[in-house]
């Protein structure tokens, strides 16, 4: 019981930090060459009409989520947020790969060198992580998290 409690505490915490690092990295690399990111996003067959709006909101959301992930109080909400965001990214990739006339790329940094399959695996890995973290931090007595 004690060991389980420990895992319940440190796993969500680790996952949160991991996600936060990933989000900060992704958002920063997008803003680094923002113009290119905006152009690439605009060239995407899915988001054309919303490109400008999405180009800003994606890195901003990522920063906010990273911040919330590092805050004890909002961690659970932020984990749900990460799950939602990663699901959206994954859906986007699957749609682009299967249903669009051509395939663009709009990721930054190291992520740019990843193939689409690796990208999906990467996303799914983070989705699984956040689900695990959510399950662990809410299972058992909910007050345990607040105590720690």
């Amino acid at each position, binding site marked *: 019981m004690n060991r389980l409690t420990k895992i319940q505490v440190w796993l969500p915490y680790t996952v949160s930090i991991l996600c936060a690092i990933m989000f900060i990295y992704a958002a920063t690399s997008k803003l680094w060459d923002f*113009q*290119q990111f*905006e*152009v690439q996003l*605009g*060239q995407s*067959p*899915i*988001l*054309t*009409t*919303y*490109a400008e709006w999405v180009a800003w909101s994606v890195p901003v959301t990522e920063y906010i989520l990273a911040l919330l992930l590092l805050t004890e109080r909002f961690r659970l909400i932020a984990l*749900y947020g990460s*799950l*939602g*965001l*990663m*699901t*959206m990214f994954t*859906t*986007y990739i699957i*749609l682009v790969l299967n*249903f669009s006339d051509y395939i663009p790329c709009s990721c930054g940094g190291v992520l740019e060198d990843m193939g689409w399959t690796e990208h999906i695996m990467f996303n799914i890995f983070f989705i699984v992580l956040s*689900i695990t973290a*959510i*399950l662990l931090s*809410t*299972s058992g007595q*909910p007050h345990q998290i607040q105590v720690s």
Partner: protein
Amino acid sequence: MIANNIHIKLLGTISLGIGLVVILFLSSEKQLHQNNAFTRSYPPHPVIKLYDLDLGYNSYYIAGTDHNEIYLGNSTAPWHLLKVNISSKDTLHIELAPTNKQLRYRSLKVYVSPPFFFVMDGTMPFILRGKVGEWKARPWIEQTAYFNKALPLDSTKILIRTISSTTHQSTLGIIEHFKSPNLILDTSLLRQHIDGVFDVDGILIKNGYGPEVGYVFFYKNQFMIMDSHLKNVSRQRTIDTVEQAQIRVGNQNKKGQISMSAPPLTINKFACMAGRFVLIQSDRLGKNENKAMLDQASIIDVYNYKEGIYAFSFYLYHIAGHKPRAFEIIGNHMVALVGDQLSIYRTIEPFFENLNIIEH
């Protein structure tokens, strides 16, 4: 009880994520293709397919016609030319050669306009000319003008599209060479309203059976017909409703390049001109047209530019998932390049006139 609640929340989050993106996707898909403001008419069988000819490569482009024959240039083997006789299916491989063995070039385009053929590179820039049959390309025009598109009109005249050094916008012009090369630009023809380069992008066409030349805009419902001196301009509209190019142009990047910041809405993809007709390929859907059709065939709209009217439309079927990328009318045949195949169709009267008769 608590666990159940969490599962619902998790499922909810995931479905919300998926749902949102799918909705975005569907809405932008719809915006891209559907346009209920115009209606096409598809009469039965204005063209009938005769046969497909296997060319072996998908890098061929149409490099001119002559009576019953079509010349195909090859973008990966620029000095190679293929001559196909439409009625006999005979093919002849031709090797072109420059007289200057040290010739430096970047991207060559060959065009055959009997009795001459032309080898053009708008980036160097030069135009070589040689006699059909002899196939030796001699220096003809050098350094007169850079160009990004060129179409020989006759033995001495080349229609070009270039960037004007004064306006920095796309411009049509004619290089004429009797004794010495002479360049005439008309900056008033391509009327810009966004950047003057992307928004007025399009295709040069010429009437193989008359004196007219034309320019078909990619991103708006317009084409122009002119005489070979770029005079007597007639501006005509296609059946589409997009009057102004719907493109977005980004700012200069660090290398000074400018790119489109959104996929452009392409109205007209490629075109050809023959007799009194302009034929334009368009993927835009009109009223009561099924989007699934675009997976199997490409739509060709036929305009009678002499009368300034839309005539009719027909389908050009894809081969093994490949869309046609160029076509031309030769006499009472239509030829189309589809993947590594050359499709030969017969044009049917009364939809098309018999151009062999008109020519003489």
